């Protein structure tokens, strides 16, 4: 009887160890969230999100930013006003309304870059990406900072 109990206990402990260890290993090696296949949290225009940020930055941060960095996934529609490239060779497409003080900088990835290569300034597009920071006026820079959207790709309509 004692032997059996010991056997059960040790099997349980072993199983626990394997499951726990596996879970820890999984957690440790868990891949980054796949933004493009994830569900869209908010669909809006570049003008809308910029004005939301410029009228109340704290409320907007509360709404869009997540404490663990997995912030809201947005689908943003706007006019292409500038196309550039960052130091990581990622395309950066600025969506900005003609009368807006700031816009949305959509940063593409190595995988999605080609989708941004045929864009032209002036056309209206929709991009999907994760928000990293909001728009605001910075007193030290003396300019308006754009909303930053990363892991972006174009949404085909």
């Amino acid at each position, binding site marked *: 009887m004692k032997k059996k109990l010991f056997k059960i206990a040790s099997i349980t402990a072993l199983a626990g160890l394997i499951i726990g260890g596996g879970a820890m290993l999984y957690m440790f090696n868990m891949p980054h969230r796949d933004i493009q296949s994830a569900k869209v949290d908010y669909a809006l225009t570049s003008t809308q999100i910029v004005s939301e940020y410029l009228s109340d930055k704290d409320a907007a941060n509360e709404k869009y930013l997540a404490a663990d960095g997995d912030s809201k996934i947005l689908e943003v529609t706007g006019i292409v006003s500038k196309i550039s490239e960052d*130091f990581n060779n990622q395309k950066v497409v600025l969506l900005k309304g003609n009368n807006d003080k700031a816009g949305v900088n959509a940063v593409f990835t190595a995988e999605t870059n080609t989708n941004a290569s045929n864009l032209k300034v002036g056309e209206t597009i929709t991009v999907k990406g994760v928000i990293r920071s909001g728009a605001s006026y910075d007193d030290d820079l003396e*300019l308006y900072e754009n909303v930053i959207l990363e892991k972006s790709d174009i949404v085909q309509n």
Partner: protein
Amino acid sequence: MKKVSILLSSLLMLLTISAYGQTNDKLVSSKTHMKFYSHTAVEDIEANNYASVSTINTETGEVVFSVPMQSFEFEKSQMQKHYNSDKFLDTKEYPKAKLKGKITKLSDVDFTKDGKYSVLVEGELTIKEKTNTITEKGTIDVKGNTINVQSKFNINLADYGITFAKGKPSTNIAKEVEVTVHSEYSAE
């Protein structure tokens, strides 16, 4: 007639110069790279950020970097989550960090002449609303209309209220983290 055209062209020249001078006062860069590097015997951790905005005022020597903290990317997603959390940088509460400094001997730098200039920047670094004074070396590389700024310095995490008493972070994250900055400005 000749007089008028001379007057007109000189006026035009003056206008061009003043317009050029105005846009030239402040260089703006949104092409930036900022890197955190932590080295311990257990592991090396690196995070990269390509989304900062920076300005240099060529008249006053003021240098500003605004850093969106959630744009730092780590190889492991678990690390990134931990970095963003309220135990570490609390990026939801403090979405931006700022570096505000001044080139100490601005007269050594000629932003209109090609060359590599070594500079010292004195100023303040604010992370999580904790501000510390910094004095760091950097280089300004002027090549035509393109100006590249590079700097590498160390920051003490405890100075910004980031401490780990126990567990994995206390052994795997260095107390002092190396920060590399690179930004490119174009004088238009």
